[in-house]
């Protein structure tokens, strides 16, 4: 019975891996790779862009789609606007900022420990990157 359990884990982990790969795109073959797209978000695109407005592909996030429009001015990304965004992560509600409570703060510190699972909003950010990358590929000179 133990053997069956271990096998099922491998299969599931593979399914998750495939889905994640699909989200981020193929790391080697397509321009929508997670690594390349992250570089774009971080602001060091290795290419020049034509001025204009470019609509990205619709990318699948949790329960909903993300689609963005990139605006290029002076060969740089000057704005990215949402055409579609899952409403459960909507930013439409805001309240005024008042003094922060006295909660402890710390700088982020990267950890190296092995973990069994990870929490984080990966799918929606991955979908964003995918849609933006497809918009920018149209803008490349």
């Amino acid at each position, binding site marked *: 019975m133990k053997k*069956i359990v271990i096998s099922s884990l491998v299969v599931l982990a593979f399914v998750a891996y495939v889905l994640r790969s699909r989200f981020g795109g193929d790391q080697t073959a397509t321009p929508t790779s997670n690594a390349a797209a992250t570089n774009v978000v971080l602001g*060091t695109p290795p290419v020049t862009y034509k001025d204009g407005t470019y609509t990205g592909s619709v990318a699948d996030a949790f329960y909903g789609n993300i689609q963005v429009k990139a605006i290029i001015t002076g060969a740089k*990304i000057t*704005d990215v606007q949402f055409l579609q965004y899952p409403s459960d992560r909507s930013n439409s509600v805001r309240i005024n900022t008042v003094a922060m409570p006295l*909660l402890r703060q710390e700088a982020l510190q990267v950890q190296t420990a092995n*973990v069994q699972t*990870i*929490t*984080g909003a990966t799918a929606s950010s991955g979908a964003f990157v995918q849609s933006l990358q497809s918009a920018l590929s149209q803008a490349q000179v």
Partner: protein
Amino acid sequence: MMGMPITIEGVDNNACFSDIDQAFAYFDYVDHTFSTYKPQSEISCINRGELKLEDAGDDMQTIFRLAEQTKQATHGFFDIHHGDSVDPSGIVKGWAIEQVSQLLQRLEWKNFTVEAGGDIAVVGHFSGTTPWKVGVRHPFEIEKIVKVLSISNLGVATSGTYLRGHHIYNPRNGDVVVADIASLTVIGPNIYEADRFATAAFAMGSQGIQFIENLAGFEGYMIDSHGTATLTTGFDHYCLPS
């Protein structure tokens, strides 16, 4: 659920394939019932006015009731009603993970995790008396983790994106248009509770962490767009030392 990675990990000897099939079939059912992106889903029929809530299934009525409770509990920051339409996705994911967690426990699973899109139900222990280790993903460098949580019998959910409003946060050149929240991780008594309060508190912006602080039985870890984290007073209790 299509497009959303789901991982079930069990370490019990009695776990078997058919249990996992049941769990994934349940996620499929949830997706087909509650996805606003499927024209044939019950929620889409409700939104088109073809189905009245009172004629919908029990689960739909449960979700509407839970959503209303959550709206009250979060001073209106959580609301599934958007104009004329209803989108319950902010509450359905955590609820569905919790349902699957309970399903597996009925099937005698005792030590397992169910993770869907970064939200996790953690049940029992990873090994013996060793709790499960859950990483908190770095909001700007998605291959890295910034915290290691050691937990059992709790839920962990994270709300967040790279982005606020229409602007990109650019960590390299400091081109920050809106100083705001990048991610908010919430630990709660189960994944349903953690997810709904993470979603609502994230919508509160920088106030969200104080909301979690004031919520009994919950802890939170907020990362702002400058890469500074704010912790609720009991959060450290769940963290392994770096």
